[in-house]
């Protein structure tokens, strides 16, 4: 019996010891630092030395030469769907072939890109290496100290040279700089434009060369174009960010001024703000399909590319469906700047301050904004940011709305870049959608929206 107890005791001890050792082992593995970068670099260099060059020209060779030292590094980027990002993802495949630096493109609903990036930077976890820098998010990312200053990388002769002056100046300023310091490179040049179906115009007796010059004309033309199953306009009226963008475009067009006055107070309770809401919530739904009150960007773009709707205000990044070879409206579309003004959209590309692979991440950013890549992928919808390419006849021939986009960027008004901008957008989306769906009267929605934004800005110290 004593032997039996002894055996039992010893077996339990063994079990506990084994468990403790296992736990200790697991803890040690979990807590161990990642393999030393020096070791990785040595291995990579050894592998790189043995590798045959895959570059086909000097530009590629430059990236190959610099990038090989980080071969095997993995860069993660959060992106908001396909479109422009999909083209970049494709371009990055060649970057990987050249440098051996892997990239992982994490596809999210666009609204969640901000949440995820902000939480990553706020928690300093370094999950993402390269960041999509929507300039409306700039302030909050800066507040987390999560963006890497890029001046020393731009000036570093070890990297391929980059000419910052080649970018559209406003684009570089808005997408890349904060208080004079460089945090991002201009990646996606963007401003809403106004595509309209010239064949539909002709069919109802409108001049196809004369797009509407005011929002009231949009409404008038739309009424003429609306008949049977055909609608004049494709409104992005759902409870999502594009409803805010459309309202802002109308407001900018009517008022010719930004969201806030000199005292920092919102100006939506002005005559122009109220009229913009009337157009957005009453006039545009009249000439749009009934379901447009729940539409997002994809449904609106699709409705125009299928010829169901004749006009829209839209971001160029999603207009490939209008010029694709199998498009039902191929050759029918005209492109104009929106009446009066337009919001400047767009994104920079930045490096996380908490990335473990900052140099490799910078090299990828550099590669994706390079003239060679922008030119190479322009036919697939790459949103260019270089001045020279907007004026390049070859590029214009590939992309018929490119010139319009350049014109729109020249007259575009930017969103506020203060830290609470995303919250302001959320308030706007809620009330604009409520007005469109008749949950609130247009005037009521505008005044409530103005009041809530004012309260928020007071709380954050932007209004005295």
């Amino acid at each position, binding site marked *: 019996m004593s032997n039996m107890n002894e055996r039992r005791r010893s077996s339990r001890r063994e079990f506990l010891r084994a468990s403790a050792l296992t736990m200790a082992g697991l803890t040690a593995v979990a807590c161990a630092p990642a393999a030393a970068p020096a070791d990785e670099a040595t291995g990579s260099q050894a592998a790189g030395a043995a590798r045959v060059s895959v570059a086909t020209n000097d530009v590629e060779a430059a990236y190959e030469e610099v990038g090989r030292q980080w071969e095997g590094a993995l860069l993660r980027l959060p992106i908001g769907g396909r479109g422009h990002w999909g083209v970049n993802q494709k371009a990055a495949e060649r970057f990987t072939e050249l440098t051996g630096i892997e990239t992982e493109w994490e596809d999210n609903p666009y609204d969640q890109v901000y949440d995820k990036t902000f939480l990553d930077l706020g928690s300093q976890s370094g999950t993402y290496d390269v960041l999509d820098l929507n300039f409306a998010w700039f302030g909050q990312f800066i507040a987390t100290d999560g963006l890497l200053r890029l001046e020393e990388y731009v000036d570093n002769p070890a990297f391929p040279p980059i000419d910052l002056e080649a970018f559209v100046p406003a684009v570089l300023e808005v997408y890349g700089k904060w208080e004079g310091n460089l945090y991002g490179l201009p990646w996606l040049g963007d401003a809403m434009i106004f595509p309209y179906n010239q064949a539909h115009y002709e069919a109802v007796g409108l001049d196809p060369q004369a797009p509407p010059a005011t929002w009231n004309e949009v409404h008038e033309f739309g009424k003429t174009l609306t008949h049977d199953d055909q609608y004049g306009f494709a409104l992005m009226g759902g409870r999502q960010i594009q409803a805010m963008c459309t309202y802002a475009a109308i407001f900018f067009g009517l008022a010719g001024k930004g969201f806030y006055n000199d005292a920092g107070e919102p100006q939506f309770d002005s005559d122009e703000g109220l009229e913009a809401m009337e157009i957005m919530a009453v006039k545009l739904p009249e000439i749009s399909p009934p*379901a447009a009150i*729940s539409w997002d960007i994809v449904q609106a773009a699709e409705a125009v590319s299928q010829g169901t709707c004749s006009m829209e205000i839209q971001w160029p990044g999603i207009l490939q469906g209008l010029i694709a070879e199998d498009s039902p409206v191929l050759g029918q579309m005209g492109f104009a700047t929106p009446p009066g003004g337009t919001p400047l959209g767009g994104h920079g590309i930045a490096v996380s301050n908490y990335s473990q692979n900052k140099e490799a991440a910078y090299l990828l950013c550099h590669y994706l904004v390079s003239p060679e890549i922008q030119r190479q992928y322009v036919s697939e919808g790459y949103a260019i940011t270089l001045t020279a390419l907007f004026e390049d006849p070859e590029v214009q021939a590939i992309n018929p709305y490119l010139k319009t986009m350049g014109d729109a960027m020249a007259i575009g008004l930017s969103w506020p870049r203060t830290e609470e901008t995303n919250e302001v957008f959320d308030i706007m989306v809620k009330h604009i959608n409520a007005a469109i769906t008749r949950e609130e009267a247009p005037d009521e929605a505008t005044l409530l929206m103005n009041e809530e934004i004012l309260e928020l800005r007071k709380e*954050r110290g932007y209004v005295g």
Partner: protein
Amino acid sequence: MASVEVSQQGRRPYRAEQRNRFLGLPLHYVLIAPTFLIVFGLLVYPLGYAIGLSFSNKILTGSVPFKWVGLENYIDLLVAKSEMWTSVWVTLRFALVGVLFEFIIGLGLAMVLNREFIGRTWLRVGLLIPLMVPPLASGLVWRIMYDDEFGVFSHLIRALGGDPPIFLGDPNYALYAVVATEVWRSSPFMVLVLLAALQAQPQETIEAAEVDGASGWQVFRLITLPFIMPVIIVALLFRTVDALRTFDLIFLLTAGGPGTTTEVISMFIYRWGFRHFKLGFTSAASILLLIATLLICVFYLRMLVVRQAAVQLTER
């Protein structure tokens, strides 16, 4: 005496001083530690942290200096003009209408499946499908089904000569469209639970009642229903609590729109937490939701206790 010996020989007496060799702590503390750590780390600490945050003005973006604000967040949430009340009303409608229909459909189907008929097994399997489909997939599928242009419902209504509404865009229909999806998704749970209760019912009582001349309705009302009532209460408790917390389905179908028509309380919390990053305010709202859920649980459990007490009294 012999039994004492067996006890002494067969079972090692408990030794209070038995200690872990590595840590020198009493063994029972060491054994319970992992569970304690998990519960503390995943439940107690986050809850305590959230309660703490709810008394602060914490905003993740960092521009507003942190300070303790006492009950200010709770007062802001509970005042009459607070947006939360809109969400509370939406949540109550969503939960009450949804759970009511789930119960009616669940009980009806359970009664049907409790009978013998050809194809019963296949029907049971078929009914489980909504439970097995991931919420993300079912949400997306229903979103397409509700689509004005390509959706099956709009197509059917047009085929019948009608004019389909904008299911997810019209404030008059959006909430009920979401409720219908939730009913489709959760009724099978009700069916399974109630069917199990029905099958546990002794057939003798029913047969005895039938011999005494009771009608089908009388058997159901006076025998079956009282028998399965405790299970009904528990099933309603589970489903109500689940419905109060629903987030994924609404996020996928309407994102709380049109306007705030489908913004249930969890969407409200999400919006203020992840759009405005107002963690103090959001924590206070979460604590209020927790308290409301607990009160509903207490209500259901009390119903259960009262019911059991009444049964015991009757038996005596």
